[in-house]
């Protein structure tokens, strides 16, 4: 970072990895001994045990979502009413997590429940980030009345309480018994995206406003670059970092929000297997069969923890203030 950028660097897009949050000086590209903030952050990250712990948690749950068969050979849709709400039995062949009211094996249900949570989390994050970045960048770059108008629209969506908006949306577009798995998941993703984009848009707008007055953006404009090119190769790479980190933390929050909606009986609905639904169903039997509540709760919390912890560690690594 010692020598300032040469003029040839100005037309070249600084690459994404080399750009820190808030700090807009492009890193010296070729100089090998100059450490960019990203490589600094990576060195810092490697030493943090929490980073590896969270990565391991995420890896396990993602694997569980893709190949649940690896973790259990039981069928989660296989119910035996005779075993209804049997407590866990810790024998070699027993059901370690016990059975729920319908006689489903809770272990198998819990393993298969990962898929819905991860799907909702990942797609809701992608969709909110896309919407937020698009709207935030456009508002900040256009400025003037376009900016004011778009920020007012953002305010409107921001003012609607998250859960209430979600409940209303899911009741208006209710599922029935014939709704397919991906439609059910898609609706939850959609509602999370509709209610979640304003915070990302605000963040992105602030970030772009910080990058926009920089010399290299002015230089690109002076050289006759089109707005599209300025945004794509100069503004976006330098303004994306805060959004990426917040999105990572949000991924955990969306999984939690999906479970909350399912808990209220309107997020995911059977036949989709979901931790939120399982927890909601078990609440009534908390006196007699607490195991039905505890195992899905632990899995859900661990997944959310994995993503939030990762986002937290990465943010710390990128934010020199906390060092």
């Amino acid at each position: 970072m010692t020598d300032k950028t040469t003029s040839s660097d100005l037309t070249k897009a600084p690459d994404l990895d080399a750009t820190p949050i808030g700090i807009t000086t492009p890193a010296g590209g070729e100089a090998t001994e100059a450490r960019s903030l990203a490589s600094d952050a990576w060195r810092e990250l490697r030493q943090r045990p929490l980073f590896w712990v969270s990565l391991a948690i995420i890896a396990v749950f993602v694997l569980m979502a893709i190949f649940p068969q690896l973790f259990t050979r039981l069928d989660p849709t296989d119910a035996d009413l005779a075993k209804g709400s049997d407590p866990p039995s810790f024998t070699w062949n027993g059901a370690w997590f016990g059975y729920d009211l319908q006689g489903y094996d809770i272990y198998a249900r819990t393993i298969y429940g990962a898929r819905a949570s991860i799907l909702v989390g990942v797609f809701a994050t992608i969709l909110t980030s896309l919407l937020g970045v698009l709207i935030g960048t456009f508002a900040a770059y256009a400025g003037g009345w376009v900016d004011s108008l778009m920020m007012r629209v953002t305010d409107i969506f921001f003012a609607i309480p998250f859960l209430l908006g979600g409940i209303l949306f899911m009741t208006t577009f209710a599922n029935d018994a014939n709704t397919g798995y991906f439609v059910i998941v898609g609706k939850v993703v959609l509602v999370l995206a509709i209610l979640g984009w304003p915070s990302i848009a605000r963040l992105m707008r602030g970030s772009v406003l910080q990058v926009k007055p920089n010399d290299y953006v002015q230089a690109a404009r002076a050289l006759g670059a089109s707005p599209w090119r300025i945004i794509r190769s100069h503004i976006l790479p330098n303004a994306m970092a805060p959004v990426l980190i917040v999105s990572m933390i949000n991924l955990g929050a969306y999984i939690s929000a999906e479970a909350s909606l399912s808990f209220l009986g309107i997020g995911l609905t059977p036949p989709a297997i979901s931790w939120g639904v399982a927890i909601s169903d078990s609440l009534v039997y908390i006196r007699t069969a607490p195991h039905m509540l505890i195992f899905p709760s632990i899995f859900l919390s661990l997944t959310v923890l994995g993503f939030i912890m990762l986002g937290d560690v990465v943010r710390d690594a990128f934010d020199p203030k906390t060092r």
Partner: protein
Amino acid sequence: MGKYIVRRLLLMIPVVVGATFLIYAMVFAMPGDPLAGRCGERPCNPAFAAKFRADHNLNDPLPIQYAKYLGNLAQGDLGETFQQVKVADELQQRYPITTRLAIIAILFELFIGVLAGVLSGIRRGKFIDNLVLVSTLIVIAIPTFVIGSLAQYAFGLKLGWFPVTVSPQATWFELLLPGMVLGAISLAYVARLTRTNLVENLRADYVRTATAKGLSRARTVGVHTLRNSLIPVVTFVGADFGGLLGGAIITERIFNIRGVGGYIFQSIHSRDGVAVVGAVTVLVIVFLFMNLIVDLLYGVLDPRISHD
């Protein structure tokens, strides 16, 4: 200052109108006929049905219905539900309960959160710091309804320290456990926010000066550093109050509290649009006012920020 407040109040109008319109439109689009089942097993008398529809503006298209609603709202009338109950009356009974719940949550998160944040901030990198950081992460990761159900099971059922559910009177003691559940996640944020700001401010010049002139550690931290570190915390808590009112829906359901959240949930299920829009409108307005107060407070607490 006056000009700033007026400008902010004016900016609130389009937000309230837009938000209520979105809610209204969604309620309008809800499937189901409000007349279904109203007259028992048989269809309603056509004369009654016609009057019912006319009374509730059900024959108008969405924009007209909404304009009529907004006209009433501007006169302070939140409308009547399909059961001929005034929404304002119902809310008047329920808002104090939810407000009490939110106050408990706020006090809980302020006291415990700031305490934990200060402890971890002044012992940065030590055991207690790591303990606070990891435990707050865990609290943030556990969804409210899981914390609520587990707390109800452990403290209500097993240990018997608190009542399991809340009676319609909703006394302060009954609301204690639900309030703590509601405030748990915000508590974690308050602790982290306090810690970050304390750590940052402990490096400030004025703190070094205070230490150099021989002030005790307690005075340096307690008076000089903490006062400045708490500004973002106060603003967070202020903004959180509006959020807690809306977020109470889950806690209210677990502990069977007859608050605003439960009312909205129940009204959505019974397709009672007027009740939903009315309750949410009040929530949105409270939320916006809290944000305004927070912004004004910021200027008072931190003289560097001016609203003129």
